[in-house]
């Protein structure tokens, strides 16, 4: 886990009933620069436990000294978004991780097709400044429900003109994913951020259209889903831990003082790969291959079975 940065909230804006925007400045010194597509982990101290959620930086990277995130209130969440919506005010202090980028623009793309589902618009807000500065060719497709998940819609429409394509679910408009692949120039890359079903559909379509894997880029807002409690034993230290249903294995390990290298906390980057020696595993990551899953798991999202003990090589 990289070092933390202490920040202060200097602005809070309610963009829609479920989307709230926060502006942070560093308490001490300056905020590190970041590349568009980066996210930060925000430490959310709720009810005596500590949650760390990852949020895309949506501010313009050229606006130095400021980080801005927009958070959608998730109904079935573990409380992180609720904490941000209901508890955090201007003047409050938070700890965040350094920016890290798992969703960067590709330097060889001739044309960039950006596809956002709801709150998935956030990384693309940061992309726009960079794309415009480069004079790059791009188009943005934004699927939302007006009045609810259409944050920044008006601003985008005005700024991007013809390059903006909005699909309002409230008006019965649907994004036809197949059309995203029709008649695009050679060397087009597609970037998608939004719910898992949107990512899955686009992956299938890209493959069906003969696109090479390297031309599709995605960022899933995959926070760990709650699950059943389970027991873990650490072979090297002999510690035994109970992982509650609403904690990830990684969080339980950290709470017990066991630091595991980690980055995305969403099962995609591979940093927290941990060997296990026995026990049932419910793999929820998007990183390990089938064979690897026989001996390793990603504690940020995956869980042990509810009977028996998961034995970790830690």
């Amino acid at each position, binding site marked *: 886990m990289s070092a933390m940065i202490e920040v202060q909230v200097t602005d809070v804006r309610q963009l829609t009933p479920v989307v709230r925007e926060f502006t942070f400045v560093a308490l001490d010194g300056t905020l590190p620069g970041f590349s568009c597509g980066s996210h930060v982990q925000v430490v959310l101290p709720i009810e005596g436990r500590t949650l760390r959620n990852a949020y895309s930086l949506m501010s313009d990277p050229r606006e130095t000294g400021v980080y801005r995130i927009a958070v959608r209130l998730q109904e079935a969440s573990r409380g992180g978004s609720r904490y941000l919506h209901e508890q955090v005010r201007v003047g409050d202090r938070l700890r965040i991780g350094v920016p890290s980028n798992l969703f*960067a623009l590709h330097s060889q793309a001739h044309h960039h097709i950006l596809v956002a589902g709801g709150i998935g618009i956030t990384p693309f807000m940061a992309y726009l400044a960079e794309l415009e500065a480069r004079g790059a060719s791009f188009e943005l497709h934004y699927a939302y429900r007006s009045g609810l998940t259409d944050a920044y819609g008006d601003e985008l429409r005005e700024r991007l003109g013809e390059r903006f394509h909005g699909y309002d679910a409230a008006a019965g408009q649907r994004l036809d994913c197949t059309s995203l692949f029709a008649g695009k120039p050679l060397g087009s890359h597609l970037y998608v951020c939004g719910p898992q079903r949107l990512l899955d559909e686009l992956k299938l379509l890209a493959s069906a259209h003969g696109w090479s894997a390297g031309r599709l880029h995605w960022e899933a807002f995959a926070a760990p889903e709650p699950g059943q409690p389970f027991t873990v034993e650490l072979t090297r230290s002999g510690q035994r831990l109970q992982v509650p249903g609403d904690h990830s294995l990684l969080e339980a390990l950290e709470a017990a003082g066991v630091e595991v290298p980690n980055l995305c906390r969403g099962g995609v980057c591979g940093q927290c790969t941990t060997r296990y020696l026995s026990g049932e595993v419910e793999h929820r990551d998007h990183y390990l291959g089938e064979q690897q899953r026989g001996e390793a798991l990603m504690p940020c999202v995956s869980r042990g079975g509810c009977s028996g003990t998961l034995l970790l090589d830690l």
Partner: protein
Amino acid sequence: MPVVMKPVETYRGDFTFSNSPQAIARFPFPFAEDSYMYSVNIEPATPREPGSVFEHWFDIDEHYVSEMAERGCVLEKDPQRCLVMPHMAQAAWDTLEMLMEHLAADYPEHFALERDGDQWLWINRPLGIDQRFTFGDASTLPFEPLEYITRQAQGDFAVLDQRDGDLFMDAGMVTCPADWSIKFDAGMSFKQWHAPVPGVAHQLGVFDRALKYLLNIQVGHPVRRLNWTMTINPRMDTSSETFHEWGHERGLVTPENVARLVHLRVELQFMPRLPRSNALLFGIRTYLISLEELASNPVWACRLHRVLRDLPDEIADYKGLTRYRQTVVDWLRQFDPQAKAA
């Protein structure tokens, strides 16, 4: 403690380069054991003892003015030792910003940076530079940005584009390489440009693990490692392009001149994430020390004897040591108590 720069010495022709006792003391001797094998010897680049080569991100030493003159000389003969592919322009500015910020903060007696929005003033006292420019506007600098700043920083710099789960050498300033060439490696991926390294390294999986590690370097958390080879004479520019000028010198080593002619060449490699471009900077800071200077530290001389004596032939061949290796080992034997007793 402020760095005092020596008057200009040469790294070619009459080879007037030499190390002061201070430079010898802080030399990054790379061997922690009596034998050497390839490994993923990457570590977080946490600042170490004040005065050491590991204290700052970018080390400036007594040879600064000499080395910058040498770089200028190389570029005059061969301007294409600096290459920046068009998509690396942002990374070039990132590099300029990072070097200027750190040099000004770490060596305030020599460098200063004043910024008013995008109107910057950069002062480099040792080189007599006083430059006002607009950050982001290359037309306001006398050189392309990467070239501009690396003409004022010691060591080579490769700038790597991160894409497709890999790193590509799409930009760099390379005037003191250990027998490679940026023109040849331009556009290559991480494993491609390492292909010439002996098979043992590839079989150990060194490059797979190293690549994973490098891809995950975060802003503000750079990593470093040491690499080593040997050079005849204190010659900085041992590029593939100029092999016809220096390759034959490997045959000039005799028992009489070995201590003065043969140099240990150590690269302090430093890898920070470039914030706005998400590219990776690969700094290759090169230190030279003659065997004679090195032997002023008997522990080093003894260890080097054992490392070179027992080095696998494949590695010695790759590092270009073969022709003079025995002469060096024979000379170093006098510093090894075990060998003398045998």
